């Protein structure tokens, strides 16, 4: 057993070729870790600048968590970071973000879901192939362009049409925001609906249901986790979108839920104020704190959304396996 013929020993690994393969493999492996690292670094470096809000006594002289949430000593809530007595109430920003997100979702979700149902259930193949690129086109419009359009054109139209007092308000910004939200809701929902196996529909038709009954009572419920995921991911997008809101909200930090009033969102506040905030000052840390908050909330929404997508996939795979087994007999 000790001696092998030379022809066999010729098959042993050569250090040089092993080395090359190792180097390549480690390069590739480490680049994959960069992806994980990127996400961690985002959290760490945004969080690092946000942390002084909780820990630094120098910052606490001007602002702390309690003062950001509770009513001001002077009464009420207000966001005035660059006045002689800086005020950092989050309530105006929260209400602003809330109302613009609601307006955007109230418009975007029905439209996107309706369109998704139409393309997956009713539309002939031709229309389907037209609408997909159209939605991609919509998704491809940079948000600064949508913001520009909302500010310059949409605001005027809405003001004229509804006789609004202010050009820039939550309706204008919300509709602009819907342009950014619709593609993501549509895409995820349409994927979910087309993932429903054809046998579901055939079964429903066989029971005498027509197409809308099938769509409404069979396909939509079956695709529900995916539809839900679409809404959650859309909400995440609306919550974090910056440029559209920045350009078309009026940026007035009002304490109001009236959609016809100007407002200011978390994301737009960061974009508008970070340039002027003194590096390392309380204002600077507050803005990073808002960023960390945005990150955590959107991260949560994304996790939830993708969890629902995964659940839909499991559900469909389980059911379609059953269905195909049944069909085989």
């Amino acid at each position: 057993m000790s001696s092998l013929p030379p022809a066999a020993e010729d098959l042993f690994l050569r250090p040089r070729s092993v080395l090359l393969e190792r180097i390549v493999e480690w390069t590739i492996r480490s680049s994959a870790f960069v992806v994980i690292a990127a996400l961690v670094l985002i959290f760490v470096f945004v969080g690092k600048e946000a942390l002084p809000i909780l820990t630094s006594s120098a910052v606490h002289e001007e602002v702390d968590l309690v003062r950001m949430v509770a009513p001001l000593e002077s009464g009420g809530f207000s966001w005035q970071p660059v006045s002689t007595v800086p005020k950092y109430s989050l309530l105006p920003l929260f209400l602003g973000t809330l109302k613009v997100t609601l307006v955007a979702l109230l418009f975007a979700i029905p439209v996107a879901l309706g369109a998704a149902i139409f393309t997956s259930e009713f539309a002939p193949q031709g229309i389907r192939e037209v609408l997909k690129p159209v939605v991609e086109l919509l998704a491809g419009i940079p948000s600064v362009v949508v913001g520009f359009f909302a500010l310059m054109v949409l605001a005027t139209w809405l003001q004229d049409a509804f006789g609004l007092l202010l050009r820039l308000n939550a309706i204008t910004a919300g509709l602009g925001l819907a342009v950014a939200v619709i593609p993501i809701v549509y895409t995820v929902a349409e994927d979910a609906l087309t993932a429903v196996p054809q046998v579901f529909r055939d079964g429903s038709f066989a029971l005498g249901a027509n197409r809308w009954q099938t769509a409404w009572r069979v396909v939509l419920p079956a695709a529900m986790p995916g539809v839900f995921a679409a809404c959650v991911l859309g909400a995440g997008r609306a919550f974090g979108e910056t440029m559209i809101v920045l350009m078309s909200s009026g940026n007035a930090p009002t304490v109001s839920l009236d959609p016809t009033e100007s407002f200011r969102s978390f994301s737009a506040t960061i974009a508008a104020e970070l340039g002027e905030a003194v590096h390392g000052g309380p204002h600077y840390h507050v803005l990073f704190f808002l960023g960390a908050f945005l990150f955590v909330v959107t991260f949560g929404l994304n996790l939830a959304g993708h969890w629902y997508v995964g659940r839909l996939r499991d559900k469909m795979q389980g059911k379609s396996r059953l269905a195909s087994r049944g069909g085989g007999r």
Partner: protein
Amino acid sequence: MSRWIRFVGWLFTSLTGLCCLMILAMVVIILGDILVHGAPGLSWEFVSAEPRVGMTEGGIFPAIFGTVALVLLMTAAVVPLGVATAIYLHEYAAQDSRVVHLVRLALQNLAGVPAIVFGLFGLGFFVQFAGGGLDALFFGGRLAFGQPCILWAALTLAVLTLPTVVVATEESLRAVPKSYREAAYSMGATRWQVMRRVVLPQSVGGMLTGAILAISRGAGEVAPIMFTGAAYYLPYLPKKLNDQFMELGYHIYVMTTQSPDVEATLPILYSTVLVLLLVTFGLNFTAVIVRSRIRRRLRQT
């Protein structure tokens, strides 16, 4: 009863159809409005000249130049990284391993991080940590890279567009038949030889698509570059990695919101928006064509 059912069915179909029409209308109205108002101002001078009179006249060449330089730098960073990640996910890692799940999860969430958070990250990590560190190590504390500049803006965008490149590349790797890999392995190729000689040449199109989509995304993003390198106005073009730069999207934002006389600059503004759209859609369109070519070729083999 049956008439009522038919009526509801008709209503349901028309309502959902109307939703489709609304999406179509949005695209047509937005693009149409910009095309109608922006096209008259387009000229060779507009894209090749410097801005004049407080940017209310002249061209937008510096912004175009800055955008191109920015996305080229970004591409140089994101394509190798994204392609390597896709290769790892699809070729090197054991499928269903923990790491693969983690990387995919990270990619999904990276794609959902708001653009403005990328801006904060770029400022905190690249400009201050990496740039400040470079200055302390190599420039004796003199300010060189510890400031917003085109390098950091490009790297910030590279992180933002990473998922796009990975997804497109992985799709094209998936399209390479397994039998090709087996054939190459059975001929005594090492793993890297299989990659380099057989698989990667087949997926060049996917990488190209990924790069193009990343560029078209990166060219339109403003929030991440606001604090990491874009400048309001510069009398010179960026020549070094640590120069600031003008960029189309940021230019549009600044001109729209901070111009003293928006009405006067509106025609120029519209044309600038049109140029930005032409750049992003031009690239997107190229990606669509490249992708369909690949698919057709794959169907043939």
